[in-house]
């Protein structure tokens, strides 16, 4: 029971991380039907920005603010000047552009900041005694914090989508861009804003999650695994559903923690394979995911 619970806690922690990045994928997919494979690299680049600021003596929670702004501008610029011109000519070429962004940004990180791992300050409370015990299992404060932050972000996004004019316009564009345009929605502007919002959120998430995922330091490969798990989570949930990203992310996180713990041969190095198997199975069996509305007809 104790071991089971601690595995669930560990799964919920990594699951919350997947949810945060999955949400970024969902925001982009909802409005432009594109899976942004560069999402993880947006997060990584901006996390380097955060780290660079902390090296200059700025507190990490303050350093994250300009990083979020940089993220917003990066996402918006990528949509406006890379994705949109290409998409006009060829839907599928967008995928290649996203992959180019992926490798390009990663190369840029290495060129600017070098390939050695950086010690990234922890943003969430952690330490020897910083945990509570539930039925014998330890639940660390940083786990509690990341889960709480994840739910707060979900709540904020839900309010944004359902209560604000821009949220309504984003949903309208996601539903039918031509009709939305006829109603006076500036579709291009909405797309630019969605990409900006998504990259801004990934800047926030990146700085939070780097200390929590192995190796716990900021390195060039820091987002690879997270992106694959988050993509699996988003697909599982349905790619265009906030609720789906939450269920998919937590389900995947907890599921993988349990599989790793109880099915010996799948543990450790195989968990990435399990995530990829999940992706393939969803694409085969239920391309709309658990809560998705649209079929994955164009990526």
């Amino acid at each position: 029971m104790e071991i089971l619970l601690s595995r669930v806690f560990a799964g919920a922690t990594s699951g919350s991380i997947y949810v945060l990045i999955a949400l970024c994928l969902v925001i982009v997919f909802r409005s432009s039907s594109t899976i942004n494979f560069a999402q993880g690299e947006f997060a990584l680049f901006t996390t380097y920005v955060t780290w660079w600021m902390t090296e200059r003596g700025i507190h990490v929670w303050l350093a994250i603010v300009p990083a979020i702004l940089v993220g917003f501008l990066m996402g918006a610029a990528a949509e406006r000047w890379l994705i949109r011109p290409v998409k006009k000519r060829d839907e599928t070429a967008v995928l290649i552009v996203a992959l180019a962004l992926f490798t390009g940004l990663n190369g840029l990180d290495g060129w600017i900041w070098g390939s050695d791992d950086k010690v990234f300050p922890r943003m969430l409370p952690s330490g020897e005694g910083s945990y509570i015990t539930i039925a014998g299992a330890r639940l660390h404060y940083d786990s509690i914090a990341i889960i709480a932050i994840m739910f707060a972000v979900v709540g904020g996004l839900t309010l944004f989508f359902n209560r604000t004019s821009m949220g309504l316009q984003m949903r309208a564009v996601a539903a039918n861009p031509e009709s939305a345009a006829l109603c006076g929605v500036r579709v291009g502007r909405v797309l630019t804003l969605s990409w900006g919002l998504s990259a801004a959120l990934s800047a926030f998430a990146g700085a939070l999650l780097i200390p929590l995922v192995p190796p716990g330091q900021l390195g060039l490969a820091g987002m690879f695994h997270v992106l694959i798990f988050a993509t699996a989570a988003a697909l599982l949930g349905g790619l265009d559903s906030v609720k789906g990203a939450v269920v998919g992310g937590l389900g995947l996180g907890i599921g993988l923690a349990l599989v790793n713990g109880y099915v010996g041969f799948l543990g450790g190095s195989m968990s990435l394979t399990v995530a990829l198997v999940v992706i393939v199975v969803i694409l085969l069996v239920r391309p709309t995911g658990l809560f998705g509305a649209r079929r994955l007809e164009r990526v």
Partner: protein
Amino acid sequence: MSTPLFTAENLVAGYGGATVLHDVSVTVDEHEVVVVLGANGAGKSTLLSVLAGQLPALQGSFTVDGKTVGQIRPDIMLQHGISLVPQGRGTLAPLSVLDNMRVGAISRSDRREVEADIDRWFSVFPRLAERRDQIAGTLSGGEQQMLAIARALMSRPRLLLCDEISLGLAPVIIQGLFETLREINAESGTALLLVEQNAQLALDIASRVYLLEVGHVTASGTAEQFRADDSIRAAYLGY
């Protein structure tokens, strides 16, 4: 003669190299009901699409209240009071009826009066009021058409462009929709430009007619003139 509400002059438009409209001009006066008749493929939907700013014209000019409209985009045409009910309704299927109505008001700056307008159109279309929280995609064809009209009206248009609103609907529903349009025209003074296959009904509420044949306006005149014209009757009214 007073300044017309809206004019489009010498429009040339088409898709990819194929020209669909050749030198088409239309005028709509304040409060007027105008119908564009024409066979399938004559370019009627293309014309409305251009007028709504959806399809860029290759040539041509627009005026509203006698002033030239510079940039032609849907949001700018809406701000000038021109709103389109597209063919096939174009409702936002995964959004609720209420949200569809709100999207229709996006171009407006007077946010406070939006909710009052929603109530107003709900009282005109009580079936939409009953289904306000329902997902638009689950409405019947007639209800979706009502929603498309109500949504287009949410922008407070001075000119409502209606593209084949009778398409695929039962006669009794069509009758009701046209009755409602006539009332809206009478009460709010909203001018109407209708494109219709159902020429009989359209001629009943229209005061003026354009005949569009393979991308050219080949005749125009009052509705009475058209009803009295034997060749028009034979070609478009079927009696």
